[in-house]
């Protein structure tokens, strides 16, 4: 029997019908194979990509292949499954979910925790992990249980996606994964990504080929075309992958310079938009490629109010890791891994930001109150990305909102346009007298509070030495060439003063200060070019070189940019009077870590030697003495200045990787509940939709009754329901009564067609006449025309309601 009869119009009498080719077994098999191939590949690619991305451990391959089995079963038998069986399967799944509820929940939480860990290590973003309510021995079962369910769900989704010729899966699941990879840098294996991309292309191809109901494909090739095109696309992938790997191998891949430039340009523009007003200087926050002539403008950068005006180094940007193009932060996984350390340190009231103040408070006790000052920063034109803080800060960072600290190096604002107004407490200048502080601390080392401090500092010290003495190998050899071998010493490292002397001497003798140095050519290492070729520069160059040199000498150091509040700026300034710090005060310097004391700025740029107060080293107990005491205190390991953790009693607190567990917060509970409600609503809708679809299907089945005398009244009845849905009020009495309304609301032509339809219907219902196929076809066309007119008269939302809520068609 021919199907797909289409009239060119309800009036035209030329009918075109397409012969439905009976699919041979081979073609049906090919079609099924095509569906299995696309949906199966998509499912496997998606699952393995997720597993690889988030490094899920303990999974059995069977959990994933369960989904493949489901896809195979559905592809072969879905159409043959009767309604009752579908319901039974759903019930069975429901029972499985309910019975394995604890395992599924914990499996989900374990997976989330693993994902949190991976995200943290790649982005530095710390998210607290969820508490697991089962024992570790059940973890594997739980994870496998959850992933089995997840695999089945994803398999079902893939199957339905392919079956419904949709490519929503690409946009809802695959594209977000690729975007997540881009943003976070978390990438699965290359092969997984490749297969996922391939599967997505095949999905799009499948949905395009099979198309919509209006553009149905004819012919025999439609069943096997997906396999042929899959072969073509796969060949393209293989050839191209090999080709690309040959010409641009992954192992030595570096991004194209044009792409880099575009990225940098866009990023810079965004940064300037967010954080810059009138640029007060040409310092580049450690970015060597943007370096140009140094310009320090005589315009206000900061307005600072101190109730005890004092000269200070205000730290802004801090560079932790050297690369040939810029100073950067430490790797994200270091921040993530050390989150616990800093959490417990802060809980113990130890902070790298206020270490100098803490030490000073310890040694001075109550006498210290006179040295406190309240500082208010009003950022007028300076870059607002970082908060400017002195070494003498005496703050609790919890009091600041919307900030991010980078292992106590810099304080960055997370607001869109930065932070332009903030206040904090600090001590008056302690940098100039840190040796005296160190000496006093040494004298008090047996005091309980000092012991406690030293215990905490030992953990921090370990972290500092582990991360802030590293330089790239080629820079190490450069340093060796320039400075010679590191002088041997019985101590952990050479004394600080000696190191400072070495660095300063080298820079004074070999480098010329200029505000307009030669720019580093593209492709060349900044430091190497500076020390070996140009030998000229300004604060950025000096500070970078000095930081590398200190690290080479075994002393932890960092690169800093910020502003100087000089003695000249505060001279004769009364208390609480605002001090305007201009762009001319912008500067770059290096800071080194003095054991047990904290970070201290070291001036290495010759023109600035006399700008800030000189450090009084007369009180310093001697680097050697302090180092000797460290030896006696430590358990004997003197590797490069690292100190072993002194106190082993509180293992929980001392474990740097011990992150605090937690239960769900109220907000999370609310979100979870809302999510559950949404899920329930979706499930209810699905059940409702299935039921309604079934009803509609039953109605439409009635139209195909071979007995036209039965089919026509059903068609007419459905058509009348369409007319009522279209807005015509129900009438009692004869259906001829609708004629006037139809003529009024539609047209005379419609009324005429309707009248004929009434006649045919009445003939079918009341007479003994045979109903011809022509009359039947007329009724079908009549119904289609009404439906078409009603759909056309609705807007898109009404049409969606018609189709997905009222299930009119």
């Amino acid at each position, binding site marked *: 029997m*021919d199907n797909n009869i*289409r009239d*060119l119009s309800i009036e*035209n*009498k*030329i*009918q*075109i*019908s*397409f*012969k439905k*080719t009976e699919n041979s077994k081979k073609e049906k098999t090919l079609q099924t194979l095509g569906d299995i191939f696309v949906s199966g590949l998509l499912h496997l690619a998606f699952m393995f990509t997720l597993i690889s991305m988030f490094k899920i451990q303990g999974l059995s391959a069977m959990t994933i292949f369960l989904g493949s089995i489901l896809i195979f079963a559905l592809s072969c038998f879905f159409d043959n499954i009767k309604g009752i069986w579908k319901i039974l399967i759903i019930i069975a799944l429901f029972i499985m979910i309910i019975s394995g509820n604890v395992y599924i929940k914990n499996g989900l939480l374990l997976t989330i925790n693993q994902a949190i860990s991976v995200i943290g290590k790649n982005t530095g973003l710390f998210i607290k992990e969820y508490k697991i309510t089962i024992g570790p021995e059940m973890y594997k079962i739980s994870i496998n249980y959850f992933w089995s369910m997840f695999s089945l769900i994803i398999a079902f989704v893939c199957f339905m996606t392919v079956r419904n010729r949709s*490519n929503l899966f690409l*946009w809802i699941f695959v*594209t977000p994964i*690729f*975007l997540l*990879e*881009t*943003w976070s*840098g978390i*990438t699965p294996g*290359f092969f997984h*990504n*490749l297969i996922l*991309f391939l599967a997505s*292309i095949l999905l*799009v*191809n499948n949905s*395009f*080929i099979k*198309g919509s109901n209006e*553009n*149905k*494909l*004819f*012919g*025999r*090739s*439609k069943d*096997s*075309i997906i396999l*042929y*095109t899959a072969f*073509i*696309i796969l060949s*393209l*992938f293989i050839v*191209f*992958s090999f080709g*690309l790997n040959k010409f*641009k191998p*992954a192992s030595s*891949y570096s*991004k194209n310079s044009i*792409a880099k430039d*575009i*990225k940098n340009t*866009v990023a810079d523009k965004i940064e300037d938009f967010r954080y810059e007003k009138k640029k007060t200087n040409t310092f580049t926050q450690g970015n060597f490629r943007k370096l140009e002539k140094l310009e320090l403008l005589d315009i206000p950068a900061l307005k600072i109010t101190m109730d005890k005006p004092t000269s200070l180094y205000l730290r802004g940007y801090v560079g932790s890791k050297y690369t040939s193009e810029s100073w950067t932060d430490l790797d994200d996984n270091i921040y993530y891994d050390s989150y616990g350390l800093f959490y417990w340190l802060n809980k113990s009231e130890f902070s790298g930001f206020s270490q100098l103040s803490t030490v000073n408070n310890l040694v001075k006790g109550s006498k210290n109150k006179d040295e406190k000052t309240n500082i208010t920063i009003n950022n007028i034109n300076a870059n607002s990305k970082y908060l400017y803080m002195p070494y003498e800060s005496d703050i609790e960072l919890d009091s600041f909102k919307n900030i991010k600290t980078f292992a106590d190096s810099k304080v960055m604002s997370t607001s869109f346009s930065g932070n332009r107004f903030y206040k904090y407490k600090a001590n008056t200048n302690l940098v100039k007298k840190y040796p005296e502080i160190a000496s006093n601390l040494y004298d008090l080392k047996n005091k309980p509070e000092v012991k406690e401090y030293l215990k905490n500092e030992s953990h921090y010290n370990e972290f500092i030495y582990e991360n802030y003495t590293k330089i790239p190998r080629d820079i190490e050899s450069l340093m060796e060439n320039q400075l010679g071998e590191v002088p041997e010493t019985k101590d952990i490292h050479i004394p600080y003063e000696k190191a400072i002397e070495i660095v300063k001497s080298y820079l004074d003798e070999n480098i010329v200060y200029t505000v307009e140095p030669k720019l580093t050519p593209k492709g060349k290492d900044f430091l190497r070019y500076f020390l070996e070729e140009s030998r000229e520069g300004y604060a950025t160059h000096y500070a970078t070189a000095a930081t590398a040199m200190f690290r080479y000498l075994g002393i932890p150091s960092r690169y800093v940019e910020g502003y100087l509040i000089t003695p000249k700026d505060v001279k004769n300034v009364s208390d609480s009077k605002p001090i305007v710090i201009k762009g001319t005060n912008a500067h770059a310097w290096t800071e080194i870590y003095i054991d047990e004391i904290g970070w201290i700025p070291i001036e290495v740029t010759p023109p600035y030697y006399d700008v800030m107060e000189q450090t009084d080293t007369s009180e310093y107990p001697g680097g050697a003495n302090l180092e000797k005491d460290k030896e006696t205190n430590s358990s004997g390991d003197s590797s490069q200045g690292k100190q072993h953790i002194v106190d082993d009693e509180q293992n929980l607190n001392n474990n740097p990787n011990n992150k605090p567990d937690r239960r769900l917060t109220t907000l999370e509970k609310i979100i979870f509940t809302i999510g559950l409600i949404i899920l329930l609503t979706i499930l209810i809708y699905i059940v409702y939709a299935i039921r309604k679809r079934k009803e509609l299907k039953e109605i439409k089945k009635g139209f195909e009754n071979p007995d036209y005398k039965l089919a026509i009244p059903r068609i007419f009845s459905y058509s009348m329901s369409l007319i009522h849905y279209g807005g015509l009020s129900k009438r009692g009495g004869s259906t001829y009564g609708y004629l006037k309304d139809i003529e009024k609301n539609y047209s005379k032509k419609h009324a005429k067609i309707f009248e004929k339809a009434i006649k045919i219907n009445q003939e079918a219902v009341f007479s003994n006449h045979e109903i011809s196929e*022509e009359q039947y076809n007329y009724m079908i066309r009549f119904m289609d025309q009404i439906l078409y007119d009603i759909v056309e008269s609705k807007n898109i939302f009404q049409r969606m309601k018609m189709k997905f809520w009222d299930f009119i068609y």
Partner: protein
Amino acid sequence: MLKSRIEGLIWFVLVFFAYIYSDSYFALFLFIMSVVILLFLGISTKIIKNKVEISLKVPGTINKDTLGDCYLEAKNTSFLPISKVKCRLSFKNLMTGEEGKEEVYFSINGKANEKIHWHIRSKFCGDIEVKLEEVVYYDYLGIFSTSNNLLSHNDIIVLPDMFYINIDLLESTVENSESIFYSISQKGTDSSEIFGIKEYTPEDNLKNIHWKLTSKFDELIVKELSTPIDNSILVLLETSTPIGKGRELPKTLDAMIEAFVSVSKSLLENDRMHSVGWFDPEIEGLLMAEIYTIDDLSNLLRGLLKIERKENQYSCMDYYINMEKDSVFSHIVYITSEYSEGVIKELANESQLTVLQCEDTQEEEKITENTSVFTFTPESMEEDLRQLMI
């Protein structure tokens, strides 16, 4: 197609963004692979355009309301499979003016043939012109397409139904000395046929004395001579519409054609040679032909069914009246949907005119001197025209 393009554009923007922003090798791969795929899709559509041969096969003739087997045959000579091909077919019944378009989608594997079977059925007769107007080839993802305007076309003749009409010929009053038919009611002067016999009267010509019968009856018997009459028949079909009327309904045109061929065929079955005529817009004049056999009728039918009805200030009758004629048809059957009373009166003077008028509702037969007007409806024409007197 538009949806695919928009999705493709969004995808391309996203992978470009990913490549710029990310330093990963996969971002490079994704971007370049996307470009490669786009290029491949574009090039492949250009390649396949000239590698596919498409032909349309339709039956030459079909009957009304019967399925005609047609098929679209495509041959792909390239190794690349084609995911989707769209063929746009157009149909037009030249006679009734019905027209429409249909789009057929199919796939075709590399180095393979594909045959799409389809049926055509027409409720009305006519000449259906089937054109393959355009073929569009799509790439695998629906982003690019290329088209060929093929312009191949075929014709399907939908034959009109024919039914038997019991035709009684009224005696003509037109004399024709060469005719072999003689009047049964009118005496004449043709000695080839004896009209009757009567007793001699002094006015009678002595040459007409029937000597055989005279000797038998002992009275002078004379022959009455006959009048040879013309029994020529012309069946005229109106193929124009009056100005301002607009297009004739397809069912009316269909009914008129069926009446026309049925009358002609019925005459042939009664061994009545006759002529047929209609206005042919191509020659801008009346086309007339003599019909001796059913083959003659069949040969003319193809041309007749192609004629597109257009408005014309002159009817077929006007052309007939004004044309130069050697002789006059004694019987004229005029098939039309409307007629001019004046023209009919004028023609009725010369010939026995029978007008078969196709209307929506049946009206009573009108008979005037020398003119009969029969109305018939498309729905009941067989019943209405089962008995005709012309």
